[in-house]
Each structure stands twice: as C-alpha cells, then as structure tokens.
C-alpha cells in the first residue's frame, strides 16, 4: 500500500485541507471500528506514540495511539494556520510540519513565488524530506491551493518545481481553485496566468475547481433540502457538504460547505487505492489512463449524489440517475459542459454497493450522448470500491479529460489581457527581483499553446474518423 502527502498552501489551500483531514478521519473511523492502525489509514496518517520525544515515536502496526496527518501546512500569514492549530484538529497536525510567515504575499504571485520561494526553499525541502522518510512507499503529493492569490498561487507553484526535482518518481496531483467571475482580488488574472505556466510544466495532473460552481452546487442542495419536493426525509449527515468538525462557519459565503465538496473529491479519488473493491484503481492509473499527452493533464471532476435519501435500498433507477447526473453541467466542479464538448478520456470511480453490470448498463446508456475523440472511442476507465463514503450507500466520482475546460482558460486569458494591456498593477510584480515582462509573455504563450491544443482537438469533433490503413502482411 502506498502513502500520499498533502501539501496545503495559502489560505484557501489550508481551509480546504482542514476539511479534508476532518472528513478523512471520520471516514476511517467509520470503516475501521477496531481502531487498529491498518494499511488504509497509513496512506494518509502516521501512528505516533506521543510520549516519545523526537522522531522515534512512529508505530507501524497495532492499536492506534495518536494519528498524525501526512501533511505539510504552508502559509505566509499566520491567521489561518493558527486557527487550525487551535481548533478541534490541532492534535492531528505535527507542529514540525508547518511553515509560516507573518507578512503574507499581498495577493502577489511574484512575492509568493520568487521572494518566499527562495526564502523558504531550504525549509520546504527539509519538511518534505521528513514527510517522505516517514513513508514506506510514497506515491503521490497532493497540492491544494488557489490560483488567484499570492501564497497559494506563487509559493504553491514554486513547490511543484521543487517536488519535481527532488522526488521525480512521485506523482504531483494539484487541486487548484480558479478565480470566479466576481472575484474580489484585482490582480487574480496575473496570479492565475503566472501559476498556469507552472501547472502546465510541472504538474502531473490538475483538478481545476471554481468557487462559482461550488456555490451553485450548494444552492442546489439547499433548494432540494428545503423544498421537500421529494417527500422523503433527507439524511442531514449525508450531504456531501456536511461537516461537523471544520472550524468557524462563515456567513457571507458557505465556504465550509464548499470546501467539503473538494475534500470529498480528494477522498473519493483515493478511495479505491485505500480500500478494497472488485476493480481497484490506484493513483498511478489515473495519470496513465487520463493523460494521453503530457500537456493535456487537466481533469474536470463531478461528484454525485449530492445527498442521499433516507431509504437505503436504492432501486436501480435512482442508481442510474446518479450516473446521469455525473455528466450534467450542474454537477461539474468548474463551469463546464462536458456533454457538448469532446472527451479525450473519462474515468468513473464508483464506491459502495454497485456492481459491474450497473456500471456497464450506464456506460452503454450514456455513451451515445457523449462525444469521444476518434482515437479513443471507448475511452472509459472504471473502478469499483466496496467501501462507500460516510453517510452514503454509494457514490460516483467522474473525472473527464474534456475540451470543456477550454472556456475557463480562454476567459482567464481574456481577463489577463484586459489588465495587461493597461499595464495596471504591473509595477508591483516587476519590482520583485527575478520578475521581468518576459515572465508574463511566456506565461501567456504557454496558455495560448494549451488552448490551441484543445482547439485542434475540437476541430476533429465534426470530422468523420479517418482510420489509418492497417499493416498488410504476406500470408
């Protein structure tokens, strides 16, 4: 069994990370009733005897003493990390795995990347090496950050290069929160654009998320819960957004609920690697199957169902609804419509009491309405994990490598161009050592090249598939 390390960077990254650890603990608690430290838990947690000072405290088997998250928390201002360390999860984090500063990055990618990057490079390396040493077989780094700010965006992407150089064999999965239309950070287009270049070059797999989609999903759930349209009671704990342990409810935007969705995404992504099932899917299989060309590694994700009804026996029609929902644009975690764009590849990760015949029936049913690229007409990767998420009897995570991610990038480019043309706020960046205009123009061409790749693929959508003539052999 392999281990993964989560690196949460910046305010957004740490808040999401916090939700993730809370959910992970609850999930393992529900599955592992005997409190034995087993391989499933060890994928994200260490078992430590806290009475032992120093490094000798790790225990590899037996009863659980004290679980420590395999996490590195990085933030250039102290507020968020301090709150975590004072909240209910404080014992889960190893105090030695934190990197904080006081001044913050001022929503400036250059400060995060160049200034704090060089300042903290050694410390970062040291913490990473430490967490890797604690792993028997480290498979994957999960980086959680936002694109629009300074720390998450700048320092978070600086990290990627460090990870690539230091741990070339370990996968780098990045969960990136993209800025929405009504984002309040003026410089977010610059930050996002500069971060995109790093993601293009140094990430193995990126799961883009945006706040607007998360917010829409929350609103939809609220509507359904409150309207009582369906008649039967909805189990409150079964909401994909529910969180008993996260800290502080915010009033303006339901960030906790939104962060929980992302936390669920990460848990479901790794469920088949941690728990048993009749068709397992490990993390290295995600990259193998869903990334046909190294640059095209952006995966649009969707989670269903968003809640479950009190009735435990799910008739197959409801199960089928779960599959249909996964492809609707309302369930995607970014503003995207996969049904009307081109699929390069699609993965369906099912948890719970679902069998291969259910999976196949639904693939057959949905296939005709989806468009796949000509060389991957049956581009489905599937997995069945027997352990459902907490509070649900079954769930589905769909990951799509689909050209529907293009509009997000095009919009990003447009917002960037509007600002850049006027050279607004540019001096804040250029005054940082190591930053030049070429950084901006290179980032722009990197993004344009990516968009062009997607354009070329889209162009093949309407063309009939032209099969290359097969090899002919003499008989």
């Amino acid at each position, binding site marked *: 069994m392999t281990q993964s390390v989560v690196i949460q960077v910046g305010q957004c990254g740490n808040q999401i990370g916090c939700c993730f650890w809370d959910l992970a603990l609850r999930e393992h608690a529900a599955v592992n009733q005997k409190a034995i430290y087993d391989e499933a838990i060890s994928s994200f947690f260490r078992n430590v005897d806290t009475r032992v000072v120093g490094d000798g405290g790790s225990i590899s088997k037996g009863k659980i003493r004290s679980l420590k998250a395999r996490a590195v928390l990085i933030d250039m201002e102290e507020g968020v990390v301090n709150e975590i360390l004072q909240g209910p999860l404080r014992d889960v984090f190893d105090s030695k795995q934190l990197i904080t500063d006081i001044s913050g990055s001022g929503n400036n990618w250059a400060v995060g990347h160049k200034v704090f990057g060089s300042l903290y490079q050694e410390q970062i390396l040291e913490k990473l090496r430490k967490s890797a040493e604690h792993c028997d077989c480290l498979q994957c780094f999960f980086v959680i950050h936002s694109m629009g700010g300074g720390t998450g965006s700048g320092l978070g992407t600086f990290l990627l290069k460090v990870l690539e150089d230091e741990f070339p064999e370990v996968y780098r999965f990045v969960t990136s929160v993209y800025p929405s239309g009504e984002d309040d950070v003026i410089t977010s287009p610059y930050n996002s654009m500069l971060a995109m270049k790093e993601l293009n070059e140094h990430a193995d797999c990126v799961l883009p998320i945006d706040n607007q989609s998360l917010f829409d999903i929350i609103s939809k759930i609220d509507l359904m819960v409150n309207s009582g349209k369906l008649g039967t009671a909805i189990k409150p704990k079964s909401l994909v957004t529910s969180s008993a342990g996260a800290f502080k409810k915010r009033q303006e935007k339901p960030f906790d609920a939104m962060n929980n969705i992302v936390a669920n995404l990460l848990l479901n992504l790794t469920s088949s690697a941690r728990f048993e099932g009749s*068709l397992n899917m490990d993390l290295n299989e995600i990259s193998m199957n869903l990334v046909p060309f190294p640059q095209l590694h952006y995966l649009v994700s969707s989670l269903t169902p968003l809640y479950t009804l009190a009735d435990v026996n799910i008739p197959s029609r409801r199960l089928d609804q779960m599959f249909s929902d996964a492809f609707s644009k309302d369930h995607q975690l970014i503003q995207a419509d996969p049904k009307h764009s081109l699929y390069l590849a699609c993965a369906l990760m099912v948890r719970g009491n679902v069998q291969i*015949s259910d999976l196949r029936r639904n693939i057959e049913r949905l296939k005709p309405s989806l468009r796949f690229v*000509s*060389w991957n007409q049956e*581009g489905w990767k*599937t997995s069945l994990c027997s352990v459902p998420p907490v509070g649900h009897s079954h769930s589905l995570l769909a990951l799509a490598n689909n050209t529907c991610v293009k509009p997000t990038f095009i919009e990003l480019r447009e917002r960037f161009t509007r600002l850049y043309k006027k050279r607004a706020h540019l001096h804040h960046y250029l005054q940082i050592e190591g930053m030049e205009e070429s950084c901006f123009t290179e980032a722009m061409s990197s993004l344009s090249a990516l968009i062009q790749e997607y354009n070329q693929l889209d162009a093949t959508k309407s063309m009939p598939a032209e099969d290359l003539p*097969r090899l002919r052999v003499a008989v």
Partner: protein
Amino acid sequence: MSIVTVQLGQCGNQIGFEVFDALFSDSHCPQGLCSKRENEAYQASCKERFFSEEENGVPIARAVLVDMEPKVINQTLSKAAHSGRWKYGQHSCFCQKQGSGNNWAYGYSVHGPRHEESIMNLIQKEVEKCDSLNGFLIIMSMAGGTGSGLGAFVTQNLQDRYSNSLKMNQIIWPYGTGEVIVQNYNSILTLSHLYRSSDALLIHENDAVHKICAKLMNIKQISFRDINQVLAHQLGSVFQPTYSGEGSFHYRRNPLGDLMENLVPHPEFKMLGVRNIPQMSENSLAYSTFTWAGLLKHLRQMLISNAKMEEGAFKDPALYTSWLEPVHAFSVWKTQRAFSKYEKSAALVSNSQFLVKPLDMIVGKAWNMFASKAYIHQYTKFGIEEEDFLDSFTLLEQVIASYCNLGF
C-alpha cells in the same frame, strides 16, 4: 502429474481463488453420481493435479500468487483460509506496495527484472513439491499492468527455465467498452509476447461471460464475483480428471500435454476458447433433466453460430480445415463422475476462428490510437518504444491473416 498455477494481478488472483474453490467443491461434491471407488479415484486425481497436503490434512493449492500491491492478495488469502476447507501456502505469495498503474511497460520492464529472482524462486519451491510436473497454468488479464506486463515477463522466464514443461496461459479478454483506457495497447503487447513464449492461450471474454450470467443464469445485478465463478466453472469442467482414452477407466495423467496435442496442431494457431453446457442458476438446476443428444446438439450449435451461451455431428469434416482429418481434429474426453452438481455436462474447448473478430477489433482500435501517438509517452518512459509496438502489430496481423485463411 501436477499443474502449478501462477495467479497474477487483481484479475488473476480473484479468478484463481474461484478456480481452486470450484475444483475443491466439485471434487468433494456428494452428488458424484458414480460408485464410491470411482469418486475416490477422481478425488485423488484432482488432488494430485491441484493440491498438495499439509500435516493437518488441509489441502494447499499448488499456486503462486503475485501482485504488485497488497490489497487483493490479502483478500484472496483470507477468503481461502476462512473457507476452512482448503488454503493457499503461507509463503506462496509475492507482493509489492505500489501497483503497475495499468502500464504494460511498467509491469514488463520494471517489475519483471526487479522481482525476477523472488518470483521464480517461489515458483521453483512450488514445483519442488510436485512428484512430477505436468506444466503451468498462468492466470492473468490483458487489460491491466501487472497481469499483462508482468505475466508476459514471467511466461517468458518459465519458457527459459522450464523448457520441458508446458505452459497454458488463461487470459481474460476485457470488455469491449472500457475497463481501462489503454487496454488495447496492453492487450496487443501481451498477446504478441505470449504468442512467442506460451504453448496455448485459453481465452475468456468478459463480454461473453457477462452474457452467460445475464441470459442463462438470470442474475440481475452481476458482480465480478458472479463472472469469476462462471469462468471457474468452465475451467473446472476442462481441467477436472477424465479418462485417458476410449475404453479406459484410468484418469489421464497428462492433461496439459493431451490438451495441447489435440488442440494446438500448429504453433501459428494457439488461441483456444471454452464453451460449456449446461449453465443455469441454482434454482433451475433442480428442475432440469438432460439427454446427451440434446446437450451435444446445443454445443455444436454454439460452435457453428459462434454463440457462447448456449452431435455425432462433431465429426462433420465441414467443420474443420482441409489439412486436418476429423479423426485428428476431434477427440472426446469422458468420465462417469458428474461435475459440480450437474447430472450431465459437457465442455467444448476449441481452436477456431471465433476469436478473429475480437482480435481484429482490438488490433484496429490500438492501431488508431497508436496513429495519433496518444499515451505512447507513458510506455516509452519505461523502455517500450514505438518499434516494440510495431512488432506487436505485425505479429498479430499475421495471426489474424493465418486464422482467416483457414477457410481455404
């Protein structure tokens, strides 16, 4: 003579368990419908082939379990131990921490050489437990990374080290519609390598077995367990002991050799398939009676129409290629002992054109993907180059052409 089974990857191990379970259940089935002495001879023969014995009398499967990540092997070992009736050897498994990632190149070029010694040692230990070795049965899938890539590597090794023993690879052909996106690449690489190093490829298609579960056995929510059990039933009906010849009442001692001799007349034609009659749900079994004529007629129908589900006419020369006489092409193996609660049952193992179409489809899809170069970087990363792909395509196109030309 004994058969050593090597189970590779998630699929191989899940199926391997069901196979041993089916073999054991059948040989200890109280409804043998024959004399006690007959039953005992049958049991002894089955045991010699597939199980060795421990001090406390619990039979141990003659098997080596290999997987690159631990979950499935752990499950398989505990399922067998829990049954209380038979189990796997305590030290018969080889496991690593991180899987092959559905990457044939990783299974073949990285895991293979790295773990060659350990795996071959395990196999050697199992071989030493046999009084005489008939050969190897290697159970693997084509679509993934371990079963396919490491399976191809292990088979090659077996050919080098045990050149006098026979090797039959039990291969699972994946569903046409994706279990794994790169399954076509993995499949052509597997098939082309196995064609060079294996003696026979016994093929089971997931789609076909799925249809059996749905239409014949009326299972509503079909799980992989159901599929694997049907598969195990088919394999059991082929490998359980039968008399060594017409008029003989001794059980044959060289099942693999006899199978190969009858079914693989020429090394260009190695792909075998199994059809099995009857197959029904437990409930219907109680209400059915059979006649041999009816069963065999059904079986012949399945052969001709290429239906998977469902005589003397087998001696019809029109069924066979011109360079084989029906008397050489067709042979019957019998036993009085009933198989697995069926009063009468028959299995047909054939080497025929039935796999040409599926093979052609896989090669076609893989070729299209290859033309666009999609996913190739994942393979070249671990040493499988475009030439290797081209070699595989060439070999398989040759096989397809050969099978197609059988009609002339």
